[in-house]
């Protein structure tokens, strides 16, 4: 069965410093992986996706993620955090059309 594990339930950074949100996946074959963001009282927005093309994936708002098969990881990074990045982030794996979500990581950005 496919699954994702987000290693941190809460991450706090200062504005202007790098962001790292960690995600490990479990899959018996090459997975399709995504990161979604959810701002308070809003729906989910797709940040980026990996579908077995380039291992370094660039997304919106300066986010990127690197697919590492040897480490079964798909960590999300951003060089410099902005206050507007404060939100809930979900690592997601696609399994025959349905999406399987991790538990989420709350990103806090301090001024």
């Amino acid at each position, binding site marked *: 069965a496919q699954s994702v594990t987000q290693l941190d339930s809460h991450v706090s950074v200062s504005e202007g410093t790098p962001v790292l949100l960690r995600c490990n996946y479990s899959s018996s074959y090459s997975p399709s992986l995504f990161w979604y963001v959810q701002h308070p009282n*809003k*729906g989910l927005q*797709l940040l980026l*996706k990996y579908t077995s093309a380039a291992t370094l994936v660039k997304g919106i708002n300066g986010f990127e993620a690197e697919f590492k098969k040897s480490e079964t990881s798909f960590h999300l990074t951003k060089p410099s955090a902005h206050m507007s990045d404060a939100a809930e982030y979900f690592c997601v794996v*696609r399994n*025959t*059309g*349905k*999406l399987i979500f991790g*538990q989420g990581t709350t990103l806090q950005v301090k001024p």
Partner: protein
Amino acid sequence: DAGVTQSPTHLIKTRGQQVTLRCSPKSGHDTVSWYQQALGQGPQFIFQYYEEEERQRGNFPDRFSGHQFPNYSSELNVNALLLGDSALYLCASSSRLGGGYEQYFGPGTRLTVT
């Protein structure tokens, strides 16, 4: 181009009642998936519809049912509501032509069961 829309935005029901939630997919999309997001949790897949039929189902009881209409819009019905059904219900649409990899989510319907 309108994105995914859902109605209503909020709903309060009593235990034992029935509820219907509605979703209109993004223009050009033919597949609708429903997810339940309990407070503090990641969304969980309920079921997926295309060509007006349920194609996949997650681990949810038969109290949860759905429908897809010829214009691709969809309804989620929940019967005999329980307190544990209180959650944010999210609809996502995608296109089978594009492989269905990208699912676009609506803002959700917040259901409170008292």
